């Protein structure tokens, strides 16, 4: 039980197939409390399926998924909402609701009183660096970065111990992306959240991740720190994947 307490997310030999294809193939993972775990890989490598298994949107064909000491089952899905916050590309905000309504939805679903929601929204707006007057805008009136900050507020609304981020910066321009990357790192540290971040961007993995799992064809190819992966690649694929995204030395030198 002592080990479980420090491991917030555990995958035990989890397999999930779609038709003949195994999207997740005998994966075992453990995410330590308060760390940021990056799932790195190209599209189709099984990253998003792993997130959906943690969220209870999918069930494993075999093996088990445990989040905060609770086994993920169809019945327990509502319980998960309090434990896991979820951020996706472009925020996935509801176009018919204002930013404030969007961010407050998880609290409203649990019947929070209005003053409590207001106070929480104000606090979160400051935390994620969103000007408060923007809360009254509809998503279509916000920039991509602002939408993503609202999405982050929504994920943090119930103060869950776990945050899942699925390519959160994927659709942003480089400057907004850099700014948000910095803010995300700060927020993760300040709140001490356990974070699972899905990305195919090595830079993002390097900046935000304390542990990296590199995935290929539904399998974990290697797990460790960025330095581990770079210095002791377990398979040629690891080195290949890292090299493919590294900027040419001349470019880095001239910056």
């Amino acid at each position, binding site marked *: 039980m002592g080990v479980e307490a420090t491991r917030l997310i555990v995958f035990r030999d989890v397999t999930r197939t779609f038709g003949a294809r195994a999207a997740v193939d005998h994966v075992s993972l453990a995410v330590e409390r308060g760390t940021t775990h990056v799932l790195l890989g190209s599209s189709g490598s099984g990253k998003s399926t792993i997130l959906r298994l943690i*969220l209870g*949107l999918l069930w494993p064909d075999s093996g088990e998924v445990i989040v905060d000491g609770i086994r993920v089952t169809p019945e327990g*899905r*509502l319980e*998960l*909402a*309090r434990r*896991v916050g*979820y951020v*996706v590309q472009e925020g*996935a905000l*509801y*176009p*018919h*609701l204002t930013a404030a*309504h969007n961010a407050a*939805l*998880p609290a*409203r*679903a*649990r019947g929070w009183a209005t003053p409590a929601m207001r106070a929480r929204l104000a606090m979160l707006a400051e935390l994620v660096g969103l000007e408060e007057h923007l809360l009254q805008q*509809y*998503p*279509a*009136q916000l920039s991509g970065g602002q939408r993503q900050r609202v999405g982050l507020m*929504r994920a943090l609304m*119930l103060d869950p111990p776990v945050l899942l981020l699925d390519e959160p910066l994927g659709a942003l321009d480089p400057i907004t992306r850099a700014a948000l990357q910095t803010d995300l790192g700060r927020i993760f540290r300040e709140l001490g959240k356990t974070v699972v971040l899905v990305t195919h961007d090595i830079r993002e993995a390097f900046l935000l991740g304390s542990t990296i799992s590199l995935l290929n064809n539904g399998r974990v190819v290697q797990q460790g720190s960025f330095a581990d992966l770079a210095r002791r690649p377990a398979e040629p694929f690891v080195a290949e994947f890292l090299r493919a995204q590294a900027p040419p030395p001349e470019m880095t030198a001239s910056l």
Partner: protein
Amino acid sequence: MAASSGRVTAIVVILAAVMLPVGLDAHAVAQPVRVGSKSFTENYVLAEIVAQTVEQVGEAKAERKLGLGGTGIVYGALAAGDLDLYPEYTGTISRAILKDPSVTTVEALRARLGPLGLTISDPLGFDNTYALAVRRDTAERLGLRAISDLRRHPELRAAFDPGFLEREDGWPGLRRAYGLQLADVRIMEHALTYQALASGRVDLIDIFSTDGRLARADLVVLADDLGFFPAYQAVLFARRSLAERLPRTWAALERQLVGRIDGNTMARLNALVDLDGRPFAAAAATFLGRPAPGRAGPQLRRELGRLTLEHLALVAVSLAVAVALGVPLGVLAARYPRLGQLELMGVGVLQTIPALALLSFMIPLFGIGTVPALVALCLYALLPIVRNTYAGIISLDPQLVDMATVMGLGRRQRLGWIELPMASVTIMAGIKTAAVLTVGTATLAAFIGGGGYGTLIVTGLALNDVATILAGAIPSALMALAIHALFEALDRLVVPRPLRGRVAT
């Protein structure tokens, strides 16, 4: 956030509450005599004569259910106890209702109808049957008096109505019975045959023996000397309970009508309506020797006002019920794909049933009048509402729907806060389609006594009077436009602002 779905429900409930009392007939304290008619001039006039006679006696009020759509519907209403009587013809009773052409005499008919709780009066005094007519000068020149005389003149050019040409009790049977050999027989709409005969383009036409135009044109009707045409004697077709319940009224009807209306009289009354443009009630009053009720402008306006209210009530109530049923059905279909396919097939099949057939199916279940019309209209309105609700929800971005689950929204919260508001544009589009369609379909309600603008259209069709048809059709079209505009405005209440077309950025 939850307000959007709540608002839809509220609007539906309010519409239903406002319109329901208008739509349903208040039951009179004393059971009135419910008089029906089919939708052609002669039947309207006879029914008016009956209704006015009932009113003269004063034993009970007369309730007119005129212009019903055909034998099946009127007879269905009589059999179901929704009518007390209507004018019918013996030949129709034996052939179309009892489906036994061998039953011809009044006594035999009564014996067969008795077990059904129905009866007929003695004949009113005229036959409405097919007959052949020629111009007087042709008749005199060739010495034509009876149909058998035509054997000697195969050169005569004939124009027959399509119905007469096809029916076994029409031309095919007649030709065989008399051994006729006409060289030139052409098909022509009934409305045109009189003109063709008068202008000399043809020499022989088929007619109805009480046709109003017969009273005015200089024609000779050829005698059916072999007795080929079945007897279509006019009688009152009634529930047996009527004579027991209102003996004085029944006695007065027999005294004033039975044996009192001969073919010429009926043709004259038909001519008053068809050729002189008098109302049915006025023609009936002429027969009863009473002052004709006037039909001044304000009265027409008041009638139009009443019909507008009836029509609006039909549309509003059926639509409100269709929304109240259709949206949940659409949601169910989206939740359970198997059930959904069945459901969509079901409402689709409903749509393929011709409106008149659907209306007549309602009679055994709901009788005639407003209720069956509402049920039929509601069933028709379901398809666009169910299908659009289903499509609106099914086509939502799955990521947004998943996000609702991840956030811990319950099923009802997800539906009310997320799915319905986001699908509201599509759902409203379905409701608008249903609304406009219902305004049009509601004109058919008149065929089962449901009232509304269709009453004018049915009357106009019976009179072949375009002005009367338009008096019903134009307001109906205007109402469709108005309702469309109303629902566009309703979008503001139902559809969240950012989803309403353009959004300021």
